[in-house]
């Protein structure tokens, strides 16, 4: 174990010094090669360390940051994987970076945002974490993740061996998530207040509208967004479990963030014993995570980055754009491996909602013309500039003072755009 930790630390230092790029995955990858049980051993050496795993298609990074903020504001030392290195090698890197040579963790909590396919693998290494937050499951990068139902099945299997030491905090309004968590011993369901679920119909990009128990079509009484809402199966009466919900005022807008924040609230309260008022106060001080409603100032104009990597994410980002007062919009579509190579999903996005809104639209990225084609079939005109630097400059120039430029990029595009804005790389 010691040599694996040392190896991880050395590689980490080297990759930083030589600026080798993704120093958040390689050191862990090699450390695991040196000792494949490294994670398990370290965890057993730190019996007082509280491990929180955060999984779901959308909202992982924001939820991780929010929980970290609350715990730190309440005098705890917290370790997280902030740069989004959310595979097993990312966890191993995080561990080798933070433990001392005896394998002791200095912090009291380890929050790990976990890739959908990685959650079952992490549970093999950390069989009983203190808490698992299950946010949602949306269709995302089918070429990489496979089908939503497959992920749900894998999760259900992996979670079935948990005992009551692990609190599972699950989204009651997502039928698949509710189904996964229902049979577990120590489960807490979260939701958002009913008055926020104002939509009466499902958007086109929905997935889980069949009953996970009997496979009949679910009836929705009201909808928050995508397939989240109050549902009931007309055949077997499967419906939302009883849940905790409150409105939490923060700098983060969007209904989807109310879900993330409610998950954080339950975790901070039930797992870490922090009292209600303190949680809410700490959340108010929270700044958005990078690329997630992150606002930057450029020449007196505001630029907001809204990572939009799947139909549900992009639909929600478009809502933010529509609520904004005549903003400029730049949508950047890449099809690299972290984005998913299949761009079919843009046809599941309700771009039609942008019609007749006073929004100037630019499109860019590797598949800019496919995106422009999608918009054309929605009768929406746009400027196409495949080079994102040019597109960004034109878009910011066209943005009136005091107005906002909203940038909606896929993952790799987000990193590029942010690099462009801040002049330095994040990863």
């Amino acid at each position, binding site marked *: 174990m010691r040599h694996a930790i040392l190896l991880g630390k050395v590689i980490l230092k080297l990759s930083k010094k030589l600026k080798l790029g993704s120093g958040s995955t390689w050191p862990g990858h090699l450390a695991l090669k040196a000792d494949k049980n490294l994670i398990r051993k370290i965890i057993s050496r730190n019996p007082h360390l509280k491990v929180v795993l955060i999984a779901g298609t959308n909202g992982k990074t924001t939820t991780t940051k929010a929980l970290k903020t609350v715990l730190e504001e309440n005098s705890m030392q917290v370790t997280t994987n902030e740069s989004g290195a959310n595979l097993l090698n990312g966890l191993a890197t995080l561990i080798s970076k933070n433990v001392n040579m005896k394998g002791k963790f200095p912090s009291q909590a380890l929050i790990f945002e976990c890739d959908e396919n990685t959650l079952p693998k992490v549970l093999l290494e950390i069989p009983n974490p203190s808490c698992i937050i299950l946010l949602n499951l949306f*269709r995302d990068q089918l*070429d990489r993740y496979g*089908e939503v139902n*497959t992920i749900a099945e894998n999760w259900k299997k992996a979670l079935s061996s948990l005992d009551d030491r692990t609190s599972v905090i699950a989204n009651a309004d997502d039928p698949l998530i509710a189904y996964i968590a229902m049979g577990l011993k120590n489960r807490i369901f979260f939701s958002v207040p009913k008055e926020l679920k104002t939509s009466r119909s499902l958007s086109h990009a929905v997935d889980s509208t069949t009953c996970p128990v009997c496979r009949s079509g679910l009836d929705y009484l009201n909808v928050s967004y995508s397939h989240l809402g109050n549902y009931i199966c007309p055949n077997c009466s499967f419906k939302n479990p009883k849940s905790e919900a409150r409105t939490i005022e923060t700098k983060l807008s969007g209904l989807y963030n109310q879900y993330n924040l409610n998950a954080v609230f339950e975790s901070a309260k039930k797992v870490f014993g922090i009292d209600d008022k303190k949680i809410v106060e700490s959340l108010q001080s929270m700044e958005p995570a990078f690329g997630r409603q992150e606002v930057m100032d450029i020449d007196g104009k505001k630029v907001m980055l809204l990572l939009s990597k799947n139909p549900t994410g992009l639909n929600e980002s478009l809502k933010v754009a529509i609520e904004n007062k005549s903003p400029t919009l730049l949508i950047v579509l890449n099809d690299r491996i972290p984005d998913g190579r299949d761009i079919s999903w843009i*046809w599941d996005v309700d771009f039609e909602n942008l019609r007749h809104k006073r929004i100037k639209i630019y499109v860019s990225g590797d598949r800019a013309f*496919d995106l422009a*084609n*999608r918009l054309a*079939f929605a009768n929406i005109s746009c400027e196409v500039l495949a080079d994102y630097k040019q597109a960004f400059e034109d878009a910011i120039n066209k943005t009136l003072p005091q107005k906002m430029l909203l940038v909606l990029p896929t993952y790799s595009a987000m990193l590029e755009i942010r690099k462009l804005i801040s002049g330095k790389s994040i990863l």
Partner: protein
Amino acid sequence: MNKIPILNPVLTIAWLYPELMSTYGDRGNILVLKKIAEDNNINVEVLRINQTSDNQILKKADLIFMGGAQDIQQEIVNKDLLSNKGKTLVEKIESETPGLYVCGAYQFLGKYYKDAYGTTINGLGVFDMHTVSYKEKPRLIGNIVVKSKDSNELFVGFENHGGRTFLTDTSQAFAKVVKGYGNNGEDLTEGISYKNSIGTYLHGPILPSNLTLAKKLLELSIYKKYDKKIELNFEDKYSHIAKKEILKRLNVGD
């Protein structure tokens, strides 16, 4: 605007299982058919047909579209097709109603599908082909370019399927694989062309990326319904550029 020598033409497009079989941006195909038709002064009625729809409604269709699904949804659809709508669908295909069947829909119109555990699921058998999924073989995923057998035109798309399809008669293939895998990754065939129906693995979705195919399906539908040969016009702004870009990236000359 283009003039069509038919008074108030109307096309009824049946969209089979829009909620269940709609995994890979399938809606794009409908949006494209509708817009091209409407720009040519053809009125379009889209019938959204699902498992609770009346069996007779499909008979009204002048053009049929059905997309791909995730496994659980596919099971629900299979049940409905085998016990209810399948017979009508087969009649429609046999009587030359134009149609486009993508991925899961394509597979289900074959004779059978043998899954990775060796279980055989019967299909509707209207296409002379079968599909096998092998446990040890990976899914066929990636950008795909094929050459049309009728026109030599290149079509682009994205494929993502675990099943390998084998045509009994490979001359029935819809297209020849130029880049990617196609039916099975071995014999360079892609899809099937049977009467006025096309079965294919290309999503992306296929019609927004290949507008001539959309026009062809609409023209066939008009011909079948009104017995008039017409040529549709469409002012494309970006589709051909998008296609050129991806062909360039995949090193395929147009």
